[in-house]
Every structure is written in structure tokens, then in C-alpha cells.
């Protein structure tokens, strides 16, 4: 049981570092997905721990929300790419000034 939660923590950390270090907006987005998946793993593991299905339902809802989020996020990335010809998160810095 603990090993599942530890694996979940490791995957979450890797996702975190990816969000902080990668420059390509799509890869950053993928790392966010990795973090969501890590959380799902913990939810499913705890559902088995407690012997009820609430955790699995929550993981299912997380998947639905992730699907909606991916649709919008990728549309935003597409729009930014269309106007700026770049998918790098460093280029979208106009709000800084």
C-alpha cells in the first residue's frame, strides 16, 4: 500500500520539476498531466485501502476535468502559437512589463 503512495509522490515530484524546467508549453502541459495522473494513482490506492469506491469516483472526475482542461489548454497554446509563432513559455512574457 505504502509503495503505491510513494510511487505517486515520485511521479508528482517529477511532474513538478518538469513544469518548472521545461520551456515548451506543450511539454509543460504534459507534466501537469503527469501530476494529475500521480494524484489519481493515490486516489485509487486509498480507495482500495479503505474498501469503498469514493476514491475511484474521484479519480474518474479528475480524468473528466483533465480532459476538459487539456482541450482548453491546447486551444490556448494554439492561439498563442498563431499570433506569436512560438510555443515557448518564455516568449509569452508581455504581461511582465
Amino acid at each position, binding site marked *: *500500500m*505504502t*509503495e*503505491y*503512495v*510513494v*510511487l505517486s*509522490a*515520485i*511521479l508528482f*515530484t*517529477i511532474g513538478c*520539476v*518538469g513544469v*518548472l*524546467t*521545461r*520551456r*515548451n508549453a*506543450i*511539454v509543460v502541459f*504534459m*507534466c501537469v*498531466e*503527469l501530476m494529475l*495522473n500521480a494524484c*489519481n*494513482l493515490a486516489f*485509487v*490506492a486509498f*480507495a*482500495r*485501502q479503505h*474498501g*469503498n*469506491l*469514493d476514491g*475511484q*469516483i474521484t*479519480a*474518474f*472526475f479528475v*480524468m473528466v*476535468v*483533465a*480532459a*476538459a482542461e*487539456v*482541450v*482548453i489548454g*491546447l*486551444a490556448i*497554446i*494554439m*492561439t498563442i*502559437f498563431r499570433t506569436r509563432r512560438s*510555443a*515557448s513559455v*518564455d516568449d509569452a*512574457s508581455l504581461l511582465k512589463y
Partner: protein
Amino acid sequence: MTFWILAPIMVVAALGILFVRKAVHAALLLAVVMINLAFLYAVMDAPFLFAVQIIVYTGAILMLFLFVMMLIGVDATDSSVETIRGQRAMAVVLGLLFGAVLVIGVSQVTLGTVVGLDDANEGGNVQAIANVLFSKYVFAFEATSALLITAALGAMVLAHRERLTPKATQADLAAQRMRDYADHGKHLGPLPSPGVYARHNAVDTPALLPDGTAAESSVSRVLAARGTVRSAPAMVDDIDDVRRQLSGLDGHGDPTEMPETSGKDGAPASTTEDEK
């Protein structure tokens, strides 16, 4: 047992996402992580989530990622320039600290015995999930439908582009071509086709102009950008090569060399491809 086989693969693939240069490779590694995760769900008595993970995550979401990647160009790699000094090192240190705290914290917790889902999954996991989903969580489920509709509308609004000028008709395009010809002398007809020679007739072989130089417009711009176009000097080398072999044949009159020069594809022992 399954866990100890799948977990290292997942961690290695996830670490790979951090280090690969190309976004497509990152997507494939993420697919590996997600499929392994699906198998872990199957191991943990969640067959419904196993199917949903494969269909929704690996099937739909990752394909969406790949679609967008194809649209904005697969060659887009990360720039290695740091806009904030030392950000990468700081992120790695922070990540290691965070991970260490999480892992140590989790491993010190005693979680008690695993109850297991045998009772909850009585009569099938899908039926049990449906029972909970449509009774206790029915409002969350309804809210999800609103969320999905909003997401679909939002994607349509974001992806929609208003046409500010009328679409160019075929007559407009023809008139534009004629104007280009009148103003800049741009060739009216189609672009020249690539060169067709006795030994090469591929799209990467430019046609030769009467003065012996390569016609650059006869090969695709993409090939030229990749630098895989066979250059005109290389073809001259080929010609010299053949000439040398022919003169060698004439000089020695050795019939044993004949099959080699006129073998499969008529390729001699050393072409420019071999030298590459």
C-alpha cells in the same frame, strides 16, 4: 509483483520526459507512463478506471497532444537559454527536497491493513461505481456535463478565426499570378519537376539548367531546409566516377569488372551514397 515490474518503468519513463529534447518523444514517454498506470489500476481492483485510463488518457488526450504538436511543428525543441538565472538548478533542488519530504513523510505513516475492494465490488466494479456515481455524486456528475459543454464551447471560441478579408477565388488567384508575372517576371506555369537522370530520379535530385547549375525551384523547400538535397557537384562526381570506370574498362579490358558496374540498380562499387 506486478507493481515492482511496472513502477521502475514508470519512473524511468517519467524521468525521460524531463530530459528528452523533442516534444514528440515526451508524448510517447507519457503514453508509456499512462499505460503502465492503467495496468496498476487493473491490479488495484479498478477495471473500470483501467478502461477509462486507456481510452480517455492514452487514446484521446495524448492523441490531442500529438495533433497540436503536428499543427505547431514537431521540430519545435526547447530553447536551452535560461531567462531566469539558475532557475533550472533551483527547480531541481526544490524538486528533490519536495520529493524527499513527500516520500519520507509517506513512508513514516502507518496506513493499517488494506481492506480491499472485494466487498465494494460485489456484483461487478462497473455496477458498483454506477451505484455510487448516480446516487451520492449525482450533482457532481451533472456539474461535469456543464463543464464539458463549457470546454467544448471554449475550444471552439479559441480556435475560431474571423475571416477579415473575403476568400480569394480562383479568378483572383489567376489575376494575382498574372500581376506577379507583369511586375516581377515570376514564372507563370508550375514549378519545374525534379531531375530525371539515368542513375537518379528521386525528388531530392534537382533538375539541371542548360548551363549545368541546379534549378533550386525543382526540389521541395522542405528537403532544401533539411539539407538532404543531392547537390550538383555530387552529380558531377558521379559522372566523373562513371567516366573513370569506363576508361578503366577500356584500358584493361577486364571482363570480370563488367557485372559489378552493371549490377543491381546499375550502381558501381563506390557511389556518393557509400562515401556518406
